[in-house]
Every structure is written in C-alpha cells, then in structure tokens.
C-alpha cells in the first residue's frame, strides 16, 4: 500500500517538475514549487513508514512549515517587492 502511495507521489512530482520547468508564467512556477514541496513532505512520510523510522515524521512536519513560509515570502515579495510592508496597494 505504501509502495502504491510512493509511486503515485512520484508521478505527481514528475508532473510538478515539468510544470515548474515549462512555465510559462510566474504563478505556474510558484504553484508548481509549492506543490512539489508538499509532495516532498508526503514522500518523506511514506519513506518513514516504509523504513519504520517514525522520527522522520517530525522532519516532514518541519518541511511543511518551511515550505509554507517560503511560499508566503515569495508571494509577498513578488507582490510588494519587499518584505516589510503589509496592507494593500502599490507605491
């Protein structure tokens, strides 16, 4: 069962990498990278169950956090051009 899950996740990773490389817009790439990060978390979790090393699950959780913060930072940066601004509107 975990093998089937791993195969499915790997196929999804192939699709995400294809979209990240082909583009064509910036948002395609951002979504592809975000999705690939999620799939990395999942594949680590599956590997943890395959190998019986359950302490890897903590690392998978930390990856999820890093991925989320990274994507939010990229989006904010792309929208505003800097990190320290909130609110709406452009200068």
């Amino acid at each position, binding site marked *: 069962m*975990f*093998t089937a899950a*791993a*195969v499915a996740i*790997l196929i999804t*990773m*192939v699709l995400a*990498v294809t979209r*990240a*490389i*082909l*583009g*064509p*817009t*910036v*948002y395609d*790439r*951002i979504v*592809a*990278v975000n999705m*690939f*990060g999620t799939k*990395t978390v999942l*594949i*680590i979790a599956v*590997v943890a169950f*395959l*190998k019986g*090393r359950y*302490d*890897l699950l903590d*690392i998978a959780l*930390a*990856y999820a956090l*890093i*991925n989320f*913060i*990274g994507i939010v*930072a*990229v989006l904010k*940066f*792309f*929208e*505003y*051009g*800097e*990190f*320290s*601004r909130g609110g709406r509107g*452009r*200068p």
Partner: protein
Amino acid sequence: MIGPVIDILLLSFMIVIALAVVRMRDLFGVAMLVSLFSLLCAGVFTVMDAADVAFTEAAVGAGISTILMLATLTRTARRERRRASGVSILPLTVVCITGALLVFGTSDLPRLGDPDAPIHKHVADRYLQRSGEEIGIPNVVTSILASYRGYDTLGETAVIFTAGIAVIALLGLRRRRPRPARRREGNDALGETTVVSTAAVADEPVQGRPEKGGDG
C-alpha cells in the same frame, strides 16, 4: 523494493532541474528552480538518514537563500543577458577532465554504509553503542552534531548568522518609502533605485505578457 526507485527518481529530478537552471534565462524561474533543487537535496539527505543535514539544507537552501536571491533580483535585471552562442572548447575540455577525475576518484571510496570504511574505525563504534544512553537522541548523526561536536556546530552557527547579517545589511531588507526627489539625503538615490527595479520585477503579471521559459 521501492526504496532504490525513490532514490534514483529523486536524483534524476535533481539532474533535470540542474540542467533547466543552466538553460533558463528568466532569473525568477531560476530562483524558484534552485529552491526546488534545494528541497530535493534535503529530501535525498532525509532518505539517507542524515536528518539534521537535511534540515539545514531545507531551512538555508530552500528558505533563506531563495528569499535572498529574490531580494537580489529586485536590485538587478529580471532576465539574464543573452550570450553569444557556440561551444567553447577549452572550458568544456577542462570541465570534462575534472569530472572524469572526480568519477575516477570515487572508485577508491568505500561503498555507502560500508562498516569497514576507515571513518567507521575510529570513534564510530563508541558513538553507535553509547550515544543512546549518553545523549538520548535516537538519531546518531544528530547526537554527534548537536552534542559531541556541539562547539563545532555552535561555531558554524555563528559564522552563518554573521553572514546572514552581512547580507541583510547589504541588501537592506527594511521599510523603504518611495520618496519624491525633492530632498537630497544620503540614501535617497538607493531608495529610488529600489522603486524602479521593483516595478521592473512586478510588471510581468500585470501586463499578462506570456514569458517564454526554458529557451536556450
């Protein structure tokens, strides 16, 4: 079993992404792909049971350096300048010879996980047998890095922290208002440059111009 398949696929993803990074001219896409590469690298480290190295790679490579690269992109151009096409013989030869030497050098290395490797003859036995009761961390690599070589890790952390502060001081990730050009203060010129280049980065999705990625 599925284990080697996962390893091979992750490593081939890394090769594909590295080739795409070299070929691509859109630097925002390159930054995204490098972040992806870093995340994959961390995944490979995790699969190889080096959890804390993987954690460092994910935090520094996928997190901080992506943001720093984007911050650099707002100060520079969005696209890489086109170079003159054609193959340069001398660099290609040098790279091929160096790569061949490196591959030749790996033939002398012990296999991965070989218990008779020289590095496993010195103190590794003691780590493997005693670290569980001495430190109490299930992962031996983590207990070595965080406890047995704790001062070493502390020094590395200090170095990385200093480097991060220096980079932030160079890039200036602070609040910066677009000022009218009536006053001439010390850092006014820098502020104007920021605004202009920010607009250069942000205008892509506004105009909806489809950009061509991955062109050679």
